[in-house]
């Protein structure tokens, strides 16, 4: 088993005829992901990625014709909220939104719609998810992974790749790696993904990569202390040197009014019995100390 994406994934790519959409559809296919459909309004009837993926005008049609159950969104920010709601309305169960720069108030309206439909949204402004050896959805490079039993959840992109590479180099494989996104308003939180890992028999331990801003790491620490006792968690928090009041690249990475500091997050995680690494390169070692063996 793995979570969110796997062999059962039938993927619809929204924005497949765009530069990003086409490039990543090709990468996902090469990794072995079943990319069954693409949607670009007005381009229905053509095929994308060298004729291998049928393109539809609407998500509704794509789902009806191909049985797609998961979608990934590569459309520009002004059109992305619409794309999310369209996918959910067509019956897609899991939506990954890669798009960066969506206005926060749009997401504030979209998230309750997704929740009411029972679907799951990952992102926006996220790199997607990979279940090594099964499927990848999003933009995470496929070659850094190694199949195994550690789940990873992160607010970041390249920092996630860095940690995955360090784990793979140490022979520690991953069950699923999920980037939940760097925006202030996101569809799935750390706790949402931790609860998936808690229920996943393949996942024996979890790596959590957080950063300054908000209090999602503190909430996750409290949740893990109560609900994730059998699976060790190792964490890393980026932004110990970040100044207050400055947005550090990600829309959500900002310390304001003394809240959202790395120190507060590290303290909450440690209080919950979670090992916190000082550098990404320490993570494999901390996993081994927690009883995880190379796979």
């Amino acid at each position, binding site marked *: 088993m793995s979570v969110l994406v796997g062999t059962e994934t039938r993927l619809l790519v929204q924005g497949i005829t765009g530069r990003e959409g086409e490039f990543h559809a090709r990468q996902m296919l090469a990794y072995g992901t079943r990319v069954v459909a693409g949607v670009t309004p007005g381009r229905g009837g053509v095929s994308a990625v060298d004729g291998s993926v049928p393109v539809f005008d609407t998500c509704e049609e794509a789902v009806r014709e191909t049985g797609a159950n998961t979608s990934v969104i590569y459309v520009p920010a002004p059109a992305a909220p619409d794309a999310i709601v369209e996918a959910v309305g067509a019956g897609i169960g899991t939506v990954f939104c890669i798009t960066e720069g969506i206005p926060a108030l749009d997401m504030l309206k979209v998230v309750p719609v997704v929740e009411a439909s029972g679907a799951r949204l990952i992102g926006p402004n996220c790199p997607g998810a990979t279940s090594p050896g099964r499927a990848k959805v999003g933009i995470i490079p496929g070659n850094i992974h190694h199949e195994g039993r550690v789940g990873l959840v992160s607010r970041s992109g390249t920092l996630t*790749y860095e940690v995955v590479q360090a784990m793979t180099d140490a022979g520690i494989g991953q069950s699923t790696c999920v980037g939940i996104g760097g925006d202030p*308003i996101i569809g799935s939180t750390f706790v949402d993904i931790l609860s998936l890992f808690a229920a996943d028999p393949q996942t024996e331990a979890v790596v959590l990569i957080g950063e300054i801003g908000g209090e999602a790491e503190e909430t996750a620490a409290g949740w893990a202390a109560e609900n994730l006792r059998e699976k060790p968690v190792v964490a890393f928090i980026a932004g110990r040197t970040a100044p207050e009041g400055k947005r550090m*690249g990600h829309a959500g990475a900002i310390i304001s009014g003394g809240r959202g500091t790395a120190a507060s997050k590290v303290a909450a995680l440690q209080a919950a019995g979670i090992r916190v690494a000082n550098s990404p390169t320490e993570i494999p070692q901390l996993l081994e100390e927690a009883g995880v063996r190379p796979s």
Partner: protein
Amino acid sequence: MKLHEAEAKDLLRSAGLPVPDWSVASTPAEVRDAAARYLAAGAERVVIKAQVLVGGRGKAGGVKLAGTEDEAEQVGEAILAMTIKGLPVRRVLIAPAADIAAEYYLGAVLDRSSRRVLLMGSGEGGVEIEEVARERPGAIVRVHAHPHLGLLDYQARQLVLRMGVGREHLRTAASIAVGVYRALVSNDADLVEVNPLALVRTAGDGSGALSLQCLDAKVTIDDSALFRHPDLEALRDPDEEDPADREAREQGISFIRLDGSIGCMVNGAGLAMTTMDLVKRAGGEPANFLDIGGGARADKVSAAMRLILADPKVRAILVNIFGGITRGDEVARGLVEARSEQTRDVPMVVRIVGTNAEEAGDILRAAAFETATSLDEAAQKAVAAASRGGAAG
């Protein structure tokens, strides 16, 4: 993007909120003229406030009262000569000083954990809300707006009654709360703050009539939403934007200048923060946060290098690229090109891993760059290089 008080007040007025008149001046003579108008209209005193985009203006001496035109001119001259938290005061706001009977706090903010707009109110206005939150958290009342229906009237009434606003002002106060919420939504703000919302005695008529007025305003706009608010984008203050910040914004680079000596060039925000943290851990201080973004082409690498080198404090540069979509060899070529244009010789440590890292390594070795394999090693080498440079210089 933070707005100046005068711009924030404009937005509140457009949302139908009661804001007393104000003027903006950039010379002592203009301050005098504005003060003369308000004094002639019956104000006993005027307040003169520095227009800088930082908190704590009052404590820094940037807010003063004046009772005559002469005094206003002097005070204006003094404030216009000030620098507050590194920002020179270029303009001041002048308004009739209010005769305040009571002060409240009223704010709307994007609340991340509840994923709602959160309205906050307090009977303790006029001081920083963070201070109230720390010392007397019970003095702040909160209500979440509905994501689709907005802030409902009954919620607004509940909020202002719990703030301690008297029943005689209930309707007005509730409509102000709804107005604050609407100002946030219609401008895509992530913060709208009225502090103080004051109960003011009507000037000079002796009737003792009281009315609610928004005496100060703070508004921050969600940068991601500026594409649909060209009017607000146009307010971006070129005086307060560092030329480096402007170049970074135009190149699509996230750049924040810090106080240290090690320049950092990284792809990805989380990795860029981590690189800074590891520089600190290795005993150095980062000179900047810099996320070059995805698919870093040679011209972008050159621009990033210019931004870093424009800071005279920089004694070494650490380049950390995790190639995913970004190709390592492309960045390496960009670095070689950027170094050939470089005006100042600063040691550089380069770590490129991931996609096409081997080709990148060949290019870097041929050009005699100092390279590193792990992140920790790269940070240590950069710190060592900076201190060597310091000894030589």
